[in-house]
């Protein structure tokens, strides 16, 4: 019994609980794997595996990701300030060596508000759509969005404060992100203003980096304070419609994180570091439908789980090309 990747992805993007197999749905081979692991690992084994993994693997993907994110955003800044014209514009829309690119969510907002589309926007939107279709949809979030990086740092502060028992994490219902997507789409359509752009930290931070800081950064600061003191990664997890848009693009992307149940200890380190831990529910003992499973499209392909997994049960894959790691 396999679950349908697209259906399951959509369900989780719009806030549904990950589906779990009933006992009969777990294939024989997977049940045998679960059985075989019972009592075979001591805590000391696990600890040793962790240390060994940390020594050899480190934060490989996090470093690569941060470097990529900073590099892309720096390209915008350098292009403008040194007039090299590699990447003109901001993340909402740009021209890469003269070729149009448009952020899918910004383009959507503009189209709904203005109700007219010019050719350049069609070119830009199509290019970006194909780009993220190839690279994994929400990959945009963790590998490009500048707010993601700042929020990641704020998250470390939040987790430290939680550990010190100074603050408590408050969760929201994840369904609300889909509601936001719909509300902002309707607001653009009805009011004729790109209402979401007014508060989008992605656009605000991108423009602040390129054109200089402004008062709008106060709003970004408030969001970060909210995330540090009240709710972990609240904007990305529960609010941002950009994530929903790119999540849907990611449905059809070949770049995914793959889970293999064979060596997994089910100790849950991956779920602790994940921005969207519901996608890693499959790593819970008894929650997988198959020995190999692709993590659903709400995943931002950030690689934190790949970095942290001591048994390399989580790896990047490109469908149809085999493993590249």
């Amino acid at each position, binding site marked *: 019994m396999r679950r349908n990747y697209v259906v399951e992805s959509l369900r989780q993007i719009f806030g549904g609980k990950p589906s779990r197999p009933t006992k009969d749905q777990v294939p024989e081979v997977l049940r045998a794997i679960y059985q075989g692991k019972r009592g075979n690992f001591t805590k000391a084994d696990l600890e040793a595996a962790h240390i060994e993994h940390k020594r050899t693997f480190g934060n490989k993907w996090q470093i690569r990701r941060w470097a990529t994110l900073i590099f892309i955003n720096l390209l915008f800044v350098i292009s403008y300030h040194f007039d090299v014209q590699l990447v003109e*514009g901001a993340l909402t829309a740009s021209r890469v060596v003269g070729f149009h690119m*448009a952020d899918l969510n910004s383009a959507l907002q503009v189209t709904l508000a203005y109700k007219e589309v*010019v050719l350049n926007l069609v070119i830009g939107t199509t290019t970006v759509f194909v780009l993220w279709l190839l690279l994994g949809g929400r990959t945009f979030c963790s590998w490009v969005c500048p707010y993601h990086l700042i929020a990641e740092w704020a998250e470390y502060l939040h987790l430290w404060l939680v550990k010190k028992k100074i603050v408590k994490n408050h969760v929201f219902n994840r369904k609300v992100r889909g509601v936001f997507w719909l*509300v902002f789409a309707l607001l653009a359509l009805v009011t004729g203003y790109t*209402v979401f*752009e*007014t508060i989008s930290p992605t656009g605000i931070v991108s423009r602040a980096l390129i054109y200089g800081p402004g008062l709008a950064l106060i709003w970004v600061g408030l969001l970060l304070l909210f995330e540090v003191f009240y709710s972990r990664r609240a904007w990305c997890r529960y609010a941002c419609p950009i994530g929903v848009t790119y999540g849907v693009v990611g449905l059809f992307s070949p770049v995914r994180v793959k889970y293999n149940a064979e060596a997994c200890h089910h100790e849950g380190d991956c779920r602790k570091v994940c921005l969207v831990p519901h996608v890693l529910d499959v790593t819970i003992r008894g929650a997988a439908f198959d020995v190999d499973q692709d993590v659903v499209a709400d995943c931002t392909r950030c690689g934190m789980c790949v970095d942290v997994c001591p048994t390399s049960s989580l790896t990047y894959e490109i469908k149809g090309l085999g493993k590249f790691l």
Partner: protein
Amino acid sequence: MTEKARPKKKKRVISPKRREQNRREFLRTSALTVGIVSASLLGFIPIANGSSVRLRPPAAIKGRLYGHEFFAACIKCGQCVQVCPVNAIHLGDIDDGFGVGVPFIDAREQACDFSCDGLQCVLACPTGALTHHLDFPADARMGFARLARPKACLAVQGKGFKGQARGPAFKGILRYAEIDRWNPVPVADHPYDLEICDLCVRQCPIEQRIIECAEQDRQAANSDKLARVAQRIGNECPPKHAITLEPIESADGVKRMKPVIQEGCVGCGVCEMICPVESAAIVVDLDKNADSLGG
């Protein structure tokens, strides 16, 4: 089959603690929704009280309500900012509400003087918020100049002007065809010595273009007549007059002049920038343009 299975299914028992948690999560989530949506709608305030009304780059589309469609069509990327040779364009901050990231021009600080000739900002715009229907500067309809304080105007007073138009600290730049046809220079580097102040007329990009066209015509007349015809079609050369200096009657015998705005005015704001009086005697009205006045 499922219909049969349903009645058999046991109703899940939720503990009172869990129910309380769910209730709180629901309330929190509702508060978050209301909070974020309200925060975004605060952006309507500057629209409603008119503080987001600003001079926009040439060819910014105009809708039924002023600025409405321009705000909608603009994707807030700032590519127009990047290509402007005189750095006249800035992006709105959050105090412009829905106008955050939307380009505007502060004419008094740095007006658009069409140094680029080819309307680079229009060419750079990826969404058509700066409409591509515009072919040359004289087609722009950014606003319409008005002599707001005639008594302060040096020409009306019959005075001349000597020195730097806006003082030594002024950072604005302008293209002076007689110095460098292609590169704008700081206004502060270009002192004047005028018998009667005519800066707003003298520096008007449209008036400069008229002079340029006359010069081209003169040269062309001496050589190739066909070339002259081709250029006229492509550049609307010469454009209509935008501003002229006209004598006014005065009883005291002092020679007085008055800048009179003509139907060719595009509202670029150079006159407002160059006006040496503080604050400027001539300003650009945003709710008018050459077309709206004509029709």
